[in-house]
């Protein structure tokens, strides 16, 4: 009897492990044989399924279809804490990350350098369509969800309130992963939500969300996410980092080249990376076209000093590091010179 149980367990472990390796890890039996081919080490880049990080999957898709494979391996997360932890663990040597979070990590001694911006604009604040909130002043006493305390969305709220003689004490701020925001607004668990697209547009398309403001109305050329790379990796694998940043910069140019490119990207990114309905991304990338932008993404001192100052005023940042500590502008000193990818999605 004992033998049956032990044998049964062993057979089960072997069968389930083989199936898992074959189905989910993409390993055929061949990859266990000696001499199996191993490509060069890939560059893992962390990202979330938001438009702020769109250039990450776009670069991967274009690389794969142009050359068969690229050096970039996108790793999708669902929330900021996990994404940050994977970076700290060294699992993702490069990652898309919230700008204030990157600065905060630098203040805490983490070797992180911002090398490029992820996007401009691309954030909205949504309220329930039946709510009585029509102006920013109406947020007084309401519950507002932001993606993370170290998000520029929070600073945006701070800035908007400050300009109207209010403060964060006038509202209740909650932290919530962006994918959970639409349902929270639908159920009216919160009064307003703000995060990167397409989760804001989703509330609009599903008919229960109304735009209170788009970033371009409150903070033109708003930056929320940046591409950051481990400083030690920049020292040891500089050429690879350069190729990575070049690829991402070219993807931004490609996205802003024509509306057709944006629609192509909406389709292949929805299908292969975000697992969302393509109409969401199509909506966000076109209505209006400047809802989110992927050009003019060079890292600039003045803009980061503004973020730093706001962060300090809000009490999020200590101000112990400055632009030169947490930014490296040498990879793309001026993105006007960057060409777009010469590529079209196969029909």
């Amino acid at each position, binding site marked *: 009897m004992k033998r049956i149980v032990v044998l049964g367990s062993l057979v089960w472990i072997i069968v389930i492990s083989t199936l898992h390796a074959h189905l*989910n890890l993409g390993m055929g039996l061949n990859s266990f044989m000696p001499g199996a081919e191993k490509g060069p080490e890939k560059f893992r880049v962390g990202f979330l399924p938001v438009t702020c990080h769109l250039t990450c999957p776009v670069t991967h898709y274009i690389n794969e279809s142009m050359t068969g494979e690229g050096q970039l391996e996108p790793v999708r*997360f669902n929330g900021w804490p996990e994404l940050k932890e994977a970076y700290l*663990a060294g699992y993702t040597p490069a990652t898309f990350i919230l700008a204030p979070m990157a600065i905060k990590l630098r203040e805490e001694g983490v070797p992180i350098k911002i090398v490029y911006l992820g996007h401009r604009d691309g954030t909205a604040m949504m309220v329930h369509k039946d709510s009585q909130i029509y102006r920013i002043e109406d947020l007084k006493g309401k519950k507002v969800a932001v993606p993370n305390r170290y998000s520029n969305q929070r600073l945006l709220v701070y800035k908007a309130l400050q300009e109207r003689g209010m403060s964060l004490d006038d509202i209740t701020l909650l932290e919530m992963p962006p994918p959970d925001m639409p349902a929270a607004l639908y159920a009216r668990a919160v009064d307003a939500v703000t995060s990167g697209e397409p989760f804001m547009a989703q509330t609009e398309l599903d008919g229960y969300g109304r735009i209170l403001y788009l970033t371009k109305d409150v903070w033109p050329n708003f930056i929320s996410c940046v591409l950051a790379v481990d400083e030690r990796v920049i020292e040891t694998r500089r050429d690879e980092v350069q190729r990575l940043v070049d690829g991402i910069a070219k993807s931004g140019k490609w996205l802003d080249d024509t509306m057709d490119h944006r629609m192509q990207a909406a389709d292949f990114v929805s299908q292969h990376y975000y697992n*969302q309905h393509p109409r969401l991304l199509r909506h966000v990338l076109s209505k209006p076209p400047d809802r989110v932008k992927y050009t003019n993404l060079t890292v600039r001192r003045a803009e980061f000093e503004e973020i730093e100052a706001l962060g300090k005023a809000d009490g999020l940042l200590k101000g112990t590091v400055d632009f030169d500590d947490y930014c490296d502008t040498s990879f793309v000193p001026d993105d006007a010179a960057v060409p777009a990818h010469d590529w079209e999605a196969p029909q």
Partner: protein
Amino acid sequence: MSVAPVASDAGATTGAPELLDAPEPARRGRRRLDLVRFRRRVGLPVMVMALSIAAWDVAVRISGSDMFPRPVEVLRGVIELAERGVLFKYIIASLFRVTWGFALAVMVGVPLGLLLGWFRRLYLAFNPMIQILRPISPIAWIPLAILWFGVSDAAPVFLIFLASVFPITVSAMAAVQNIQPVYVRAARNFGLSRAQLFRRIVFPATLPQIITGIRIALGVAWLVVVAAEMIAVNSGLGYLIIDARNAGKRYDLVVAGMVMIGLIGLALDILVRRLERFDEVRWGYAR
């Protein structure tokens, strides 16, 4: 293995063999008994489930919610997943992680529990530590798991291991401490060596309780699979739920994932319950 299936049923007081040669009315009576039992064991739960599903459907219709899915939409979601080929893949991935986490927990937990139960000093030394670690939810370990293991399969396996190792250790420990001293004394009188004592008395006497612990632990291991797969693995039933949240209004897939987790959990429990039917295990219950 010699225990006939009917013998495990509390209601089976009549032996099957005589009935085979029994006259026609007795056989008919037996058949009726089978039917009654079948109705009770399968009919009742199926009826409760059908009623619950109907109540669910009615509740969604009454509330008019277009977010919360109706049962038929969930079924369609399951079919869609199966057609896309991901359902089987994700089930395998989750089972893989639970298998390894749980197997490691058994391999560590059983010997550790037996040792701690047998040696009083070890127990005094380690028990407080175990009791401190035991109530910490695996979700609390997620940040550390990512720091230690990245987002590979090792991180969820580790979380499942953590969740299941403590129930197993504690049940093995308590099982040894609960052995009737008279067994041990008698064995010593017969001059059994330590190894013999362990193999012939301690292990069989503790097995039923250990199996109960294992059963509870398997339930817990399967319970934490969703939390464990919240880490950026890209497969598994837990991942399916997280991924469906990304996908906008796909709460049908969220519930489909929940239903699959429940059904597989049921299957696993039935499987482990079968272990309790073996002779060796039943011996421990003998009075």
